[in-house]
Structure formats: C-alpha cells, structure tokens
C-alpha cells in the first residue's frame, strides 16, 4: 500500500534506537468492519486532539456491512500535516484475517500492538511488538458476547493511552463526547479503557520511540467530516428543498442535513418545516425534483456520487439549456461504474464539466477543506441562482467521510442569500413585461419570474428544445446560435464570480505545482519535503472552481515547469488546463495517483523529483 521509498524518521535514526519521537507518527488500527472499532478510533483521535496535537484520521473501509477487514489510520503531526502518511509507525493488529500482513506493513523501527491470540510475537525483530489479550480483558468488563466484541476495541485505546502517554482525563472527555448523554455506555467504555491501561502498566515495557505530548495547536478547533460541513453550509445557505438517493459516500450529507434541519429549521411560530427533504426513487428523479423545485423558486440541492452523476446526465443538460438553478453535491468515489464505492478519487472532474450530450459546460466548485465545504455549499446556491445553472460541488470520499480539524466555521455575514435575477410582481408592474431569455445586462444572464407570481405578464414557457429570447419555441438557425453563444458568454461571466484559486508564489521558484480538492493537504507537506530534502522551491496554486478564474493563467505563465497533481488516471484537470491554455500546455506535467487510497506527500515528492532528475 505504501509507495514510500524513504522516511523522514528512518533517515534520521536507525531502527531500534528509541530516541523519542514526539507528536509525529501514524497509527494504523486493523480490525473487522461492523465490530464497532469506529467509536474506539474516534476516541483515540479526539484524545490526542484534545492534548493540543494536530491529528487526522482516515477510515479505510470495505464496501460491506460487517465481517471484512477495515483499517483506521490516525496521524499525529506537530507540524500540522493532516494528509495520509504513507508509512505506518504504530500498528494495531486485531483482525485475524489480515494480522500477518498488518504486522509486515509497519515500518522498520516502528511498533505493533497485537491481540495476543494472534501469536504475532516474534514475527519481526525490527519493530517493538506488544501483545495483549484484548477480548479477554474486555470479557472481564462484560460477559455479554456482543458487548465484549465492541469493548475489545476500547481495550487497545487504554493500552495505547499508556504506551503513548495520552492523558486519561482527555480520554474520559473524548468518551463522553462519543456517547452524548449515554451515561451507561460512557461508564462501561471508560471501565474498559482503564482495564486496558492497567494491563499495559502491569505487563508491557515500552520499547518504541513514539509519544504524545501536550501542545497548543488545536485550541478552539473543531473536528468534523466534510459531508456534515456541507450539510451545515446548505442549512445556513438557505437551502429549502433537498432530494437524494442514498449512495456511498454521499449519503451522510443528507443524513446530517436531515438532523440539522429538524433541529434548526422548524419555524418556531408554526412549528412547520421551512424545508422539504425527499428520498427519491433514483438519481434521475432526484435531479428532476431539484430542477422542478429550482424552477419554481426553491434553493434546491441533491447529493450523490459517480453513478448518480451519470444517471443525472440527461437532466443536467436540461438544467443547463433551460437555465434552471440546481446544486449537485458530488462526493467522488473510485469509478468507472460501481468501481470502489468506499475509496476516494477525483475522477469525475472532466466528465462532469461536459456532462450531457451536445455542447454543455458546467460550473464546478472544488472544496479542499471542511471549512470550504461549509462555505461552498452556501456559495453554490448563490451561484446556481445567479447563473440559473446547475452547480456541481466536487467533494470526495476522503474529505466527505473522514474527520478533519478545522477552525470553527464563521457565520456567513459575508454570504448574503442571493436569489439572482428574479422579477417580482412589483418589478413586472414597473416594467410592464419581460423576455425570459433576453441578455438585458450583457452578462449573458437573463431574468426570470417564479411560477405563482400574480401578474399576467409573469408566465413564460420553459423547454429543453430550441427557443428564442421570448421563450417561444424556435428552430430558426439564428435563434439557436444566439442562444448557444449567450450560454457560452454566461460561463465567461462566471469566471469572475467563482471562488478564485489560491496561489502561494515562492520568490524565484524552480517549479510550480497545481492541485485541487483533498490533494491539497499532501501538498503542504510535499513542498516542505522538496525544500528540506532537495532545496527545491515550489510555488503552489490551488484551483477551487471551473471555469478557470483568470488568475490560473498568470500562475502557469510565470513558471517554466508545472506539476498538476490529482487523484485520477486520465489527468483530468491537466487536460482541462491544456484545453484552456494550449500555448502553455507543454509546461504542464501530470502527477497521478489513482489506487483509491488518499494521496500522500511522499508519493508526490518522489514523482516530482524523479521527473526533475530526468531533467525533463
């Protein structure tokens, strides 16, 4: 799994040496899915987080409900790197199916905590191996079979707390947070953690270098997954209609939204919902409902993943051509087809940009952080209504389903709810009438009225077939060309209004790097590796939307070699940049990662260095 050639740590010290490694290591817990290790892992993550140490967690789970191997990696990084770390410093082996493999994956000089019954002692001599009868210890806490299975996970939390020096009060707090007002569960889990801890103190002698020590880098920070953040964004963005069809990894967007809305979007006066959430029969219907709702004036959205996007193709073209606002939150997973439903990817960029037959081009927003999920969800509705077009938010499984640290989200004072060019009855009385598809303002964006507007001139006829400025059916060649050109112009206007890219131009940089979405997190780290390991200075541009903002060109123009890093096979963003800037195309070099595992800094660094060395 790890493409790492070398390692920060092993470079510095030979295996075995136990000079302490503080707040800078990865833990990988290997368990069986459906065995309840999730809560144990979150508690572990939270405890470290509460000690002020930057952490990140990645859940590597199977497309299955129970019984298959699953891995959870926690990374503690004093420098605040939250991307996946290719190497495993500390392994926890609980799953018999994969125990030996799991033991082998630990980097030399690392450590392994293993369920005693797996008999992994002595499987390797270049790592510290700790054995513990996890389920026996759990059994002492509870004899109930089902419960014991669950609690066994809490045992390793206790042992790790002891071995790594995680403070018990933080663990207690984390458990309390994990089981909000479930007194009984809290007590039971706590008891188990303590049992684990005691076992460790009594029976284990620490021989590994890893330790957690209190820092102050997480004060006031929150932990949240991207899907929940998107849900919050939608709720504060004034979303009124939500339709969906369940699909991993997007389901939790609407599931979280359903809970938040029920809590915060009931009109206190009437006790009625200021929204409607509907589980559709499939994705065609989900987008159809969003389009009907957007047309009738709702701020409507749906959330889905690759297969859903494909099924939405025809309707997406209708929204584009009939100019109807719609927000589609795509949590990308590995395709094509069903692909790897529980693995991450950035593989829908190109096909979504040109989704549907005929000449179409869509607006795409690409969040990289949970904060951007919150922000872009709100901006998506504004952009959709301003441009009367479908707006696709391209999240991914890594961002959507994993937990991320973040500054608390800010109240959207700066994001007023913008309904775009909607003419009210009063406007119509003033104007006398309007032409639905007339480019009055020269920005390609026409005016619309909402069904139900009480004015005889309000009505117009919407269709996916050819029409003129007055929304009358037309097959006239010149009408069609005019319409097609205005639609293109509208997208030109969008360049200036979508979230601009974020550039970090380094003085006299040797190379430029372009990335987007979750690839961003590995880049922070990659750039430090390039600098520290080779003294290579790299400027960095993070793209946040399509069509490209003008600033993208400037960045490319100002660097001789630009590496475009993304998580798909076909270099999709690289392709779009090539199309947009043919004159600069030869400067662009793809760096591609597409095995379903979140990309890591080491992979990028090595790929870039390999190409730099080739001097290509």
């Amino acid at each position, binding site marked *: 799994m790890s493409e790492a050639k070398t390692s920060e740590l092993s470079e510095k010290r030979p295996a075995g040496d136990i000079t302490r490694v503080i707040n800078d290591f990865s833990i990988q817990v290997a368990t069986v899915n459906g065995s309840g290790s999730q809560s144990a892992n979150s508690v572990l993550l939270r405890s470290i987080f509460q000690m002020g140490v930057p952490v990140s967690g990645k859940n590597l789970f199977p497309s299955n409900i129970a019984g298959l191997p699953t891995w959870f990696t926690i990374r503690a990084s004093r420098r605040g790197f939250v991307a996946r770390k290719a190497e495993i410093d500390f392994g926890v082996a609980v799953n018999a199916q994969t125990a030996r493999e799991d033991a082998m994956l630990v980097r030399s000089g690392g450590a392994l905590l293993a369920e005693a019954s797996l008999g992994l002692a002595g499987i390797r001599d270049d790592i510290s191996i700790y054995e513990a009868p996890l389920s026996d210890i759990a059994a002492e806490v509870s004899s109930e079979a089902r419960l014991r299975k669950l609690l066994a996970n809490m045992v390793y939390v206790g042992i790790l707390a002891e071995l790594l020096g995680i403070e018990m009060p933080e663990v207690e707090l984390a458990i309390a947070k994990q089981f909000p007002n479930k007194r009984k569960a809290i007590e039971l889990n706590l008891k188990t953690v303590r049992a684990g801890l005691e076992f460790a103190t009594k029976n284990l002698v620490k021989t590994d270098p890893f330790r957690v020590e209190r820092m102050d880098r997480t004060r006031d920070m929150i932990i949240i997954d991207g899907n929940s953040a998107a849900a919050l964004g939608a709720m504060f963005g004034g979303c009124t209609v939500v339709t969906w069809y369940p699909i991993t990894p997007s389901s939790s967007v609407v599931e979280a939204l359903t809970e938040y809305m029920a809590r915060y979007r009931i009109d206190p006066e009437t006790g009625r919902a200021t929204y409607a959430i509907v589980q559709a029969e499939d994705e065609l219907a*989900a987008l159809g409902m969003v389009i009907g709702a957007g*047309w009738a004036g709702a701020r409507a959205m749906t959330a889905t993943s690759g297969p859903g996007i494909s099924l939405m193709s025809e309707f997406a073209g209708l929204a584009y051509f009939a100019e109807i606002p719609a927000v589609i939150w795509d949590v990308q997973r590995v395709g094509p087809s069903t692909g790897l439903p529980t693995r991450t990817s950035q593989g829908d960029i190109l096909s979504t940009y040109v989704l549907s037959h005929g000449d179409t081009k869509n607006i795409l927003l690409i969040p990289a952080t949970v904060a951007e999920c919150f922000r872009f969800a709100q901006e998506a509705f504004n952009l959709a209504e301003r441009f009367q077009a479908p707006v696709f938010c391209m999240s991914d499984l890594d961002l959507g389903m994993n937990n991320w640290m973040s500054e608390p989200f800010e*109240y959207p004072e700066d994001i007023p709810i913008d309904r775009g060019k909607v003419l009210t009855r009063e406007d119509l009385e003033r104007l006398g009438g309007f032409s639905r598809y007339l480019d009055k303002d020269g920005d390609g964006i026409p005016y619309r009225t909402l069904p*139900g507007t009480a004015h005889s001139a309000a*009505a117009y006829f919407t269709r996916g077939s050819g029409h003129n400025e007055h929304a009358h059916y037309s097959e006239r060649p010149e009408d069609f060309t005019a319409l097609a050109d205005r639609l293109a112009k509208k997208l030109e206007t969008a360049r200036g209004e979508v979230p601009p890219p974020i550039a970090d131009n380094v003085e006299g940089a040797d190379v430029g790097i372009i990335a987007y979405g979750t690839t961003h997190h590995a880049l922070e780290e990659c750039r430090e590796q390039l600098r520290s390991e080779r003294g290579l200075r790299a400027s960095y541009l993070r793209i946040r939307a399509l069509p490209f903002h003008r600033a993208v060109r400037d960045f490319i123009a100002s660097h001789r070699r630009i590496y475009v890093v993304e998580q798909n096979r076909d270099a999709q963003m690289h392709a779009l940049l090539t199309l947009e800037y043919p004159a600069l195309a030869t400067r662009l070099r793809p760096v591609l990662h597409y095995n379903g595992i979140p990309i890591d800094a080491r992979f990028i660094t090595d790929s870039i260095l390999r190409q730099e060395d080739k001097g290509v």
Partner: protein
Amino acid sequence: MPTAADKPRPKPTNRAGLILQDYKGVDSTLCAGCGHDAITSQIIRAFFQYGVEPHRVVKLSGIGCSSKTPAYFLRSAHGFNAVHGRMPSVGTGAILANRHLIAIGVSGDGDTASIGIGQFVHLVRRNVPMIYIMENNGVYGLTKGQFSATADEGSKLKSGVLNDLPPIDCCILAIELGCGYVARSFAGDPKQLVALLEGALAHKGMAFLDVISPCVTFNNHEGSTKSYKHAKETEEPAHEVGFVPFFEQITVDYEEGETRVVEMHDGSRITLKKLDREYNPTVKAEALRAIRAANSGGELLTGLLYVDPSKPDFTELLGMHGRPLATLGTELVRPPRKALDEIMESLK
C-alpha cells in the same frame, strides 16, 4: 340580463372575472383532428368553469405530441416541457417549492407507460397533489407511430405490424398504488371529460386521468383499438358524471339510489348518475373487478373509476410550512448566529 339579439352579448366571465379566451394558449401545431387538441379544449373549459386563477397554475409535461399541449392552454400560467418520461419528478419538485401552485401534468402513453412508468409509480405512491392526464393513443405519435406500452394485444399498425404484448392499464396501476382519484375518459366525450377535470381540480392529492386520445395520423385506422371509431363503439360509461363546484350553492335532491354524490374537500360535489350498471367507485376491489371485466370484454369503461377524497397528500406528510418554501425570507431559511455557535461548540 342582456338577451336582445341585436346588441352584442358580452362574453360570460367566471368567478375570477375572466373569459374563456383567457384560458387559451398559443395555436396548436398538432395534426388536424388529433385527440389531444380535443382534450386541450376541455382543459380550457374546465379551468374556466372552475374559475382557476391562471397565475396559480403550473403546466408540466414530458416529451411527445401530447406533451406539447401545455403550450396550447392557460397562456398566463408558467409551463415546463421537461424531458421524456420524467415529468413526475419535475412536478414533484415544483410542488415542494410552492405548495400553493395548482399543478397539471399532461403526458402521453409512451411518456407515461413506457419510459415513464417508474416515475409514474412513485408519483402515485407519494400522492403528490397534481392533476395527471395521460393522453392515450397507444402509439408514439411524435416519433411516427411505434407501439407504446398501452397498445392493446392484437392491435395493428397501418404497416400491419401486430402488437403481441399486453397493455399496461395505468388506471388499475394507479388504483393499486393508492391513487385517490382515478378516471378514464375519451377525447370524443367532452361532457364527461370536463366534469372529470373539474372533479380533479377539487381533489386534494394526485388525480389521474387516462384519456383515450386517437392519433389520426398513425393510429386511427381499422385494426387499431385506439381509433375514434373503436373508442366510440366500445365506450361504456360507468355512470353519468356531473360536477357542482363549491361556489355554486345549488341544492338539488337526487333520486334515491340513482345518483351517488361524492363530497370533495373543498366542498364541491361530484355527482354520479346511475346508468345501466351498478358501479361503486369508492370500493377498490369492486372498481378493479369492474375494470378488469370491461378490459377482458373489450369494453372501454369510462368515468370516475375510483375516488377517495380523504387521503393526506405529500405536502401534509412532509409537515411543510404553510407558505411557499420558494419565497420564505432569510430570517426563516438561515438559522441565527447562536445556532451556529451552538453547533461549533458541540464539535470542539
């Protein structure tokens, strides 16, 4: 009231103060004699008689000759000619956005029973408040006459091609799936159709009308079971349908057992005058038996086949706000700062 033949009689207005013309649309581009145009006329009449305010109406359709017709009525209502077979989802969305809208969907038998049967089933299941008219000619008119899924077994195309698959009876389907207003009619029976349309306007929830609407160009020949001739010959009204809108306070007393009166939730009444058969449209099982019997007997049973005015519609099930979601103000759709603070706290 002016009667003298010499001075021009003013056009009659309805309770909305509008005249029949106000309910028309652009000129039809369908073939002369197309059943769909006949239905359009009755829609215009029904909406006029019921006194609907056009701006409160949304007209929806899929793709097909039938789906073109929303352009031909209620010119002052918003219309949406969506994509083929997927109008139900678009209509559902529109109602979610604004529950005050009166939605009328016009579809064809291909648009509904072939490509659209999935969305149709789920629309019925949700009981989305909407009048759904299937203009049923047994063929795909707009693509030049291929059989649709409502074509009768044994029906022949001009070319002689025979349909050997059984038809989908969308009325039976709708009843089985719990639709509260299911009617079948015929483009050549304007009186019944208008009454059924007015009844549909008075119904709260989904109202489905399967209207036989001959395609004069591709399916009106000998051997077709969806021709004017065949429909006329085989039509068997289950009863004589009448409609008394809530705003007309006439009190009539009906002959015992001769006329069944259905009270609609807005106070309007549908009257079903007994003809030569007993027919009780309020009992599912009986209705279904009668329809099945008629089908196997080659009869075209028309009228209000099943009615249950009591079912809650989708907007009620969702506990939606009384005002249209589409126009709720920021204060209602964006929670206050303290809400966000509270949430942020819980995530720390």
